[in-house]
């Protein structure tokens, strides 16, 4: 079995595509745009999912919150003792953290105490972390440093609920592979945090429950609910699942909305291919009269589809990649993230795999190719006899 014939037909196809370069360039342009937009949605979704996994890698296996009237409440530290009596629990630790709304930058900051796992895994760009007992000092995320023009040894001013202004000396600035995590983070001592949020003593934001065997976490969570009915145990897996579902769902929704555009494109492709010009018909008739077989013409049409869709695919996916990872999803970051003014300056970790490629192929190239089958066949069965009479 020789490949020569197929290479020759491919060669002829490329020649013939080049002859109609303007028309083909138009199709490639529109097609790459479709692929770029679809690809951007996909790349962004998966980048977010990965980001979530990176972020949640630091989240404890099991957290217990207190619920009142269906809302998250502060939890008494004393509940920890009861929980630690459950078999399989290795320890319980209170966590102190909260959100601070900064009316100056219109952004929400996450304020935590050191030692909590949130601040553990992240590298400091400069300086050091404050210790839990220290007062009047803070480490801050890169986003806050940028928006408030803060450097080491500058003062970070925050208002406590009673309206008093408190100053913290910046002793550290975070950097992280994934900026989503530390972007809006402020780390201050435990005493400072209790004062900043006016937390009464003996009360924590939530409790971190250490579990001896990871697979038993769901069982322990159930027992906690049984013993403390107004508690809400949160499993890390559950958070990951929620994130995952939300991101997939959102991008699914966008893609569905976008399906209309895809369909329109498929119709365009169909139209382009069916509206076989007189020139093209003549060319195919000549080829057939000269000894090309119907299946050779079909092969030529196949190569034509491959050449056009692969070119568009590469252009489209390169553009999507640049859009998401170099230009920070400038086109639709607001739609997907939405709620914080700092977020548009984040960088996602570049990531692409065969799954995304297969999905993108199914969403774009397969409909395109499918819509060209019948027109190609119609062209291929052109009667050579018609051409001979001129």
């Amino acid at each position, binding site marked *: 079995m020789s490949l*020569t014939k197929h290479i020759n037909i491919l060669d002829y196809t490329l020649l013939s595509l080049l002859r109609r370069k303007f028309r083909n360039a138009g199709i490639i342009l529109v097609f790459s745009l479709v692929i770029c937009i679809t690809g951007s949605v996909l790349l962004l979704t998966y980048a977010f999912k990965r980001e979530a996994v990176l972020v949640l890698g630091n989240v404890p296996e099991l957290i217990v919150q207190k619920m009142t009237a269906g809302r998250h409440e502060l939890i008494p530290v004393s509940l920890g003792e009861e929980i630690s009596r459950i078999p399989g629990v290795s320890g319980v630790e209170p966590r102190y953290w909260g959100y601070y709304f900064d009316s100056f930058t219109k952004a929400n900051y996450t304020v935590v105490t050191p030692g909590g796992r949130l601040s553990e895994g992240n590298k400091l760009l400069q300086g050091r972390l404050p210790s839990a007992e220290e007062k009047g000092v803070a480490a801050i995320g890169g986003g806050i440093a940028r928006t408030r023009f803060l450097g080491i040894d500058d003062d970070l001013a925050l208002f406590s609920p009673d309206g008093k202004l408190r100053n913290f000396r910046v002793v550290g600035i975070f950097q992280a592979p994934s900026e989503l995590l530390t972007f809006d983070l402020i780390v201050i001592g435990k005493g400072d945090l209790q004062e900043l949020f006016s937390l009464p003593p003996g009360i924590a934001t939530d409790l971190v429950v250490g579990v001896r065997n990871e697979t038993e976490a769901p069982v322990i969570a159930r027992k906690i609910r049984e013993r403390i009915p107004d508690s809400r145990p949160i499993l890390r897996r559950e958070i990951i699942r929620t994130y995952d579902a939300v991101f997939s769902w959102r991008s699914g929704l966008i893609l569905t909305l976008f399906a209309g555009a895809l369909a329109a494109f498929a119709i365009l492709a169909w139209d382009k291919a069916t509206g076989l010009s007189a020139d093209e018909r003549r060319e195919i008739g*000549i080829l057939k*009269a000269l000894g*090309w077989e119907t299946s050779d013409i079909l092969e030529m049409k196949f190569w034509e589809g491959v050449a056009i869709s692969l070119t568009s695919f590469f252009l489209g996916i390169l553009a999507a990649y640049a859009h998401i990872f170099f230009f920070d999803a400038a086109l639709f970051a607001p739609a997907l993230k939405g709620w914080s003014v700092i977020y548009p300056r984040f960088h996602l970790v570049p990531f692409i795999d065969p799954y995304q490629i297969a999905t993108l192929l199914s969403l774009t190239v397969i409909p395109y190719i499918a819509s060209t089958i019948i027109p190609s066949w119609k062209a291929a069965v052109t009667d050579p*006899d018609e051409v*001979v*009479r*001129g």
Partner: protein
Amino acid sequence: MPADTIISTSGVTKYFNRGRPNEVLAVNGVTFAIRKGDFSVLKGPSGSGKTTLLSLIGCMTRPTAGSVVVAGRDASHLPERFLAEIRRKTFGFIFQQFHLIPGMSVLQNVMIPLYPTDSTLPDLKRRAAALLDSLDMSKRAAFPVQGLSGGEQQRTAIARALINDPDIILADEPTAHLDTALSKDFMEIMKGFRDKGKTIVIASHDPLVFEDPAVGLIVGMRDGSLTELKRRG
């Protein structure tokens, strides 16, 4: 039937649009044979069915009835796939309108019939260049075909018909678009091929063609039927 018969038809009939109001009987029960090395002309008035008979012989269309045997192979019932193969291996076609593909160079046009085969492209190019050289066309090889003169277009079409080294050359009204001098040139070229052992079939109502002394077999047609079958010389 003599042993050196290369094309024979028997009662070959072709209807267009059979069974519809616009039904046409283009070829009506034609029986004749062409021998290897014959220089033959199908002649007849316009609409007499010359082109249709030529494309039946050339396996471009299947007869409604009767049979066409080419080089010992009955082509009348073959599926299209095999007809294409016969066309490619046995025939060289020169069309009335030349039918060169615009936008491509002379060389590429000449190469077309052999693309769907196992000859490599460099090999194909070499063959095409050699053919163009033999027809004094090598200086035009890289030209796009739309800029050529009528005579040059025809030489390109001839080179294309010969690239597969066919046994039979079929030409439909080859002199219709040429002046007298170029028409004579064309006949000279054809004689050259006949002398090399090729079989030539030309459909034409140009006296310059069918009165040429080199023509050995004249097939006259009218209204789709055979009116004259004359062997000369």
